[in-house]
């Protein structure tokens, strides 16, 4: 029995990891496909798997959609020649991709992705580890990802990766402030006096039963969204890469599977960012603003809520990709300007505003 208690969480974690990595792979495919649609191209449509691709109509459609491309990409990364440039610092050079990927995968532990109703009739989150400081854990761990980028830039021992990682560090630090401040009002509202959720993400979702926070705190949502874009190093803020002026940014010197790990880490961050935004502002697994939880009580309800949550994440990922192919990159000093002179003050003002509003609501309702 004891033994089983150890095994089952590990199996759950592995299962979630598999789903998460698959999502990463298909996020890459989605990126390529949506990009091609926006640019009037066809996109990846050639990779075939022997038997499945030969099924008369379905196989052809799947091939045209590029369904088999992630597998082909992964295998390509795996079997490519590993080139290690001579001028790198070996230990850190090998460590960097691992450090970039690990935090991105660690954060999913505290991510509630559905709800079930326990034997006492209470609504409980479907989550690997339901800790009551979920958001702090995510903020703390996900920002460790920047160490991977910094280390990559430093260990590469060449100028473009170095510039990329320097930019990325500055950017991450700048936007983390605005990001932290922008979600303070959210938790001020969610963890109202009398609630027993504290800083847990489940609590935030439960507080959005009737009113999604994007409607009630749009400025927080906007600041958080911009900060998420910056934190995930996505265009318009992809200072770490900026392939037009820095060759490939921090991963210029990386190839084969090590590059693949950076790549997966980037998409893992995007998925985490999307999930976080959905949890904090788009009502998690709640159906629509006003209609909180129409899912049935049993196992089917768990599936429904999870799928609905996943659908919202997919929409957010689509938004990330859509944004990337619509926006030009900001200039580096503009990024800093936006972060320090606009978003940070705005976040503070927003915070103070909601302090007063929430205090007022409290006063009236008591």
């Amino acid at each position: 029995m004891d033994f089983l208690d150890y095994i089952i969480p590990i199996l759950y974690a592995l299962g979630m990891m598999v789903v998460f990595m698959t999502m990463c792979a298909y996020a890459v495919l989605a990126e390529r496909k949506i990009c091609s649609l926006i640019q009037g191209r066809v996109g990846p449509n050639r990779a075939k798997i022997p038997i499945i691709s030969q099924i008369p109509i379905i196989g052809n459609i799947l091939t045209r959609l590029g369904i088999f491309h992630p597998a082909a990409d992964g295998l390509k990364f795996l079997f490519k020649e590993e080139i290690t440039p001579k001028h790198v610092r070996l230990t850190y050079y090998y460590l960097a991709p691992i450090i970039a990927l690990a935090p991105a995968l660690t954060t999913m532990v505290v991510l509630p992705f559905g709800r079930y109703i326990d034997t006492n009739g209470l609504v409980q989150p479907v989550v690997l580890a339901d800790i009551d400081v979920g958001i702090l854990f995510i903020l703390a761990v996900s920002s460790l990802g920047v160490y991977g980028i910094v280390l990559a830039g430093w260990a590469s021992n060449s100028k473009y990766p170095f510039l990329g990682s320097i930019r990325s560090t500055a950017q991450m630090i700048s936007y983390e402030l605005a990001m932290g401040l922008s979600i303070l009002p959210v938790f001020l509202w969610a963890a109202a006096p009398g609630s027993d959720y504290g800083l847990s993400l489940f609590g935030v979702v439960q507080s959005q039963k009737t009113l999604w926070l994007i409607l009630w705190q749009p400025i927080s949502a906007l600041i958080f969204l911009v900060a998420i874009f910056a934190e995930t190093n996505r265009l318009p803020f992809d200072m770490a890469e900026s392939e037009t002026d820095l060759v490939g940014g921090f991963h210029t010197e990386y190839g084969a599977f090590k590059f693949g790990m950076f790549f997966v880490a980037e998409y893992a961050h995007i998925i985490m960012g999307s999930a976080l935004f959905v949890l904090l502002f788009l009502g998690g697994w709640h159906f629509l603003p006003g209609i909180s939880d129409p899912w049935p009580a049993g196992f089917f309800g768990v599936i429904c809520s999870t799928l609905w949550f996943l659908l919202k994440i997919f929409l957010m990922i689509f938004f990330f990709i859509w944004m990337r192919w619509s926006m030009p990159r900001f200039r580096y000093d503009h990024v800093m300007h936006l972060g320090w002179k606009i978003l940070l003050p705005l976040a503070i003002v927003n915070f103070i505003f909601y302090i007063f509003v929430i205090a007022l609501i409290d006063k009236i309702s008591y």
Partner: protein
Amino acid sequence: MAKTKVLERKPLTFAEKTFLPQIASGLATTFVNMFKKSITMEYPEVRPVIPDKYRGIPTLVKDPKGRVKCVSCQLCEFVCPPKAIRIKPSEIDPDTNEDRSHIEKEPKDFDINMLRCIYCGLCEEVCPEEAIFLQDNFSLSGYTRESMVYGKEKLLELGGTLPDKHFKWDKKKEAEENNPINH
């Protein structure tokens, strides 16, 4: 003197300073684009329409009766700017080639180095026999430099048969036979 008009740049409105309306309109543009038809031509399966008079690789053609039209005059060899063409002339044996017995020469070797060819079309322009044409083949490849030197057989195979308006040598032969003294 050219008139210069200094355009006054209006200060940005508040909405413009936030970027948000601009981002929204940009997103709308790309979203609409997503549903437009793609303009990609999936090349190996779908071939582009090659217009008439297109200058692809130079090829040797045969006339409708299946005879090699080239008479080895070597004008193309002389005119070729990058010196891609090499011709070795030879005589036509009148006994074995009855239908060409009155034509004196034919190429023994006719090599075009496709790595040198610049597709200028001067060979086609200069050819008095209308024997060499730049046709619609634009994609050629090979594994070695030698394989990119196309010989006579390959050129004839690529050229195929083109319609002939004149049948110059037939007319000449006819005239020769009807009126042998004038020749």
